[in-house]
């Protein structure tokens, strides 16, 4: 009953947000359009988080690392080599995929909460590197003055915030569509099966680590592409864009949207980021406090987050097998610590 209500609420909110995103550039002012473009880029990172957390069963706090790699690669390419959007997207996605591939040996052998921890450490270390590697990243000052992007060879450069927003929207829609199509194929099936029962999938001859590595690299490429969109939207980047709190916010958004749902992740991440931006505008001094309290409240309100307390009402009902929710915690989450210790 409760699940049904929540599913309906999720669907209607998702529909509203998606319609709002499409009509936004004609309704809002320039500043809001720029903010929305950045939100969309982050929502795309949220999609990559959902791909790893919900579909592949590897909960991650480190997707801002390939996001940052993509953004910096795009900024360097954009200011020195090419201002063509497609080139920048491909370079950024490549940079994200390379960083993800480099971290495969760290992430893929681990499971469950260990992944959460290792990815968090990777994310923090990448931010540290960004702050110190001054010759390339500009240190904590970041990189500014990145030239306006032209989407394709021969097209004019995107001069207005509306145009940049629409460019972001088109790229995000294309990439999310591609991910949705991919997940409908056998690849998505195998990833979900590995999440639900890895031992059985291994027993039937599937090389699960290979699939997980593929998913990790793909998610890295998506996050890298999102980094390129951030550069287009902000025309300025600094290590502050890629902190650990951004990762946590995205994870919260993905959990709100239902971890295994790509569309839900997009909407959830966009909502959470929008709430953060709004809070920082309304309450300049106390935004983190309110945000923290909202985090705790959301965790308590989420259907899958809190264990149901067995009251007298529950006992009167016959014990039933709980329905399998798409956003239930991956089964892989349980046998984690022994694996590290054994």
């Amino acid at each position, binding site marked *: 009953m409760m699940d049904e209500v929540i599913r309906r609420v999720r669907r209607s909110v998702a529909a509203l947000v998606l319609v709002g995103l499409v009509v936004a550039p004609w309704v809002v002012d320039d500043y809001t359009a720029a903010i929305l473009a950045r939100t969309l880029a982050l929502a795309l990172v949220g999609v990559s988080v959902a791909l790893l*957390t919900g579909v592949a069963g590897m*909960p991650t*706090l480190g997707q801002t690392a390939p996001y940052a790699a993509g953004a910096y690669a795009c900024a360097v390419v954009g200011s020195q080599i090419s201002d063509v959007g497609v080139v920048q997207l491909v370079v950024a996605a490549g940079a994200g995929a390379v960083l993800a591939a480099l971290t495969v*040996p*760290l992430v893929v*052998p*681990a499971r*469950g*909460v260990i992944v*959460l*921890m*290792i990815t*968090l*450490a*990777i994310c*923090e*270390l990448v931010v*540290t*590197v960004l*702050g*110190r*590697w001054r010759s390339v990243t500009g240190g904590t000052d970041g990189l500014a003055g990145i030239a306006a992007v032209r989407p394709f060879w021969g097209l004019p450069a995107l001069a207005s915030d509306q145009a940049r927003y629409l460019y972001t929207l088109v790229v995000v829609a294309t990439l999310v569509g591609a991910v949705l199509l991919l997940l409908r194929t056998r690849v998505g099936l195998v990833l979900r099966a590995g999440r639900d029962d890895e031992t059985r999938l291994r027993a039937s001859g599937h090389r699960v680590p290979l699939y997980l590595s593929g998913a990790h690299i793909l998610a890295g490429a998506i996050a890298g592409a999102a980094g390129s969109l951030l550069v287009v939207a902000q025309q300025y980047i600094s290590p502050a864009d890629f*902190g*650990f*709190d951004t990762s*946590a916010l995205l*994870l*919260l958004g993905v*959990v709100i949207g239902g*971890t295994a749902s790509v569309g839900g992740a997009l909407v959830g991440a966009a909502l959470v980021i929008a709430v953060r931006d709004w809070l920082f505008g309304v309450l300049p*001094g*106390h*935004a*983190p*406090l309110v*945000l*923290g*309290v*909202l*985090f*705790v409240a*959301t*965790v*308590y309100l*989420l259907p*899958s*987050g*809190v*264990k149901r*307390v067995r009251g007298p009402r529950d006992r009167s009902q016959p014990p039933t097998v709980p329905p399998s929710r798409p956003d239930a*915690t991956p089964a892989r*989450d*349980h046998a*984690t*610590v022994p694996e*590290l*210790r*054994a």
Partner: protein
Amino acid sequence: MIAVAAGANRIDPYIIPALDGVAYGLLVFVAAAGLVFCFGVANILNLAHGTLYAIGGYTAAALLDGGWLSLALALAVGVLAAAAAGVLLAGLLTPVATGNHLTQALLTFGVALAGGSLLVAGFGPDDPQVRVPAALDGSVVVAGHRYAAYRLVFIVVAAVIATALYLTVRRTRAGMLVRAAVDDPEMVACMGVSPGRIRAGVLAAAGALAGAAGVLGAPIIGPGADTADTVLLLSLVVVVLGGLGSMAGTLLAALAIGEIQTLGVALLPSAAPFLLFAAMAAVLAARARGLATSWRAT
């Protein structure tokens, strides 16, 4: 004779960074031990761990006035406050399903965000100055170099804390429960020990350790806006390098991090940003389980 002198000269500039690395490593050990307990015993990824350290750090900055009495007071207040925060965290975590690490991580992150904001609101946005006891404010001569007396004393104190921790875990009933809970939590629950009480106890102990580290380590990793992040990152790397539940592994990993952060930076300044990364990658790639393979051997 000349060769020996040349050898000594080559090592000479690195004595002080190496000693600093020991101090830093022991501080990281005391701070990270709490996270290791949380993670290994209670199976909680506590993202608010750095905030517990920051509570200790801010307490030290507020209470220390250069006397010994104020140090004792700061230590008592810092440890109690951080332990209380740990218990509060355990209380908040109680309704959350134990197996659900995603929501645990989100919850503790929310607490870290709110707690950090409260600390900044209470103590001001600037990094406060920390005054060590006047007797330790000077420097002593170590192998021909001047070295801060406080750090030297800190090395001794942290070594005492580490030994006490080791003895507690090995020799007391509480330590036995902790080790049993790492090994087989279901069996411990079957024997009538409430997992909720173990969780509260472990989080309180973790808070106390982090608080003590925060007070004593305030002159080394001082309180400030990004202290919580720094300490959390260092503690996480310790857990990744040192594995779970093994005190020796944790100590080894913490000392390695201390040396990397001080001696490594002195030796290879250009590669400094990547050294922690490289160490983690090397250890994890070589052995997914971390430095210590078997914690029962310790």
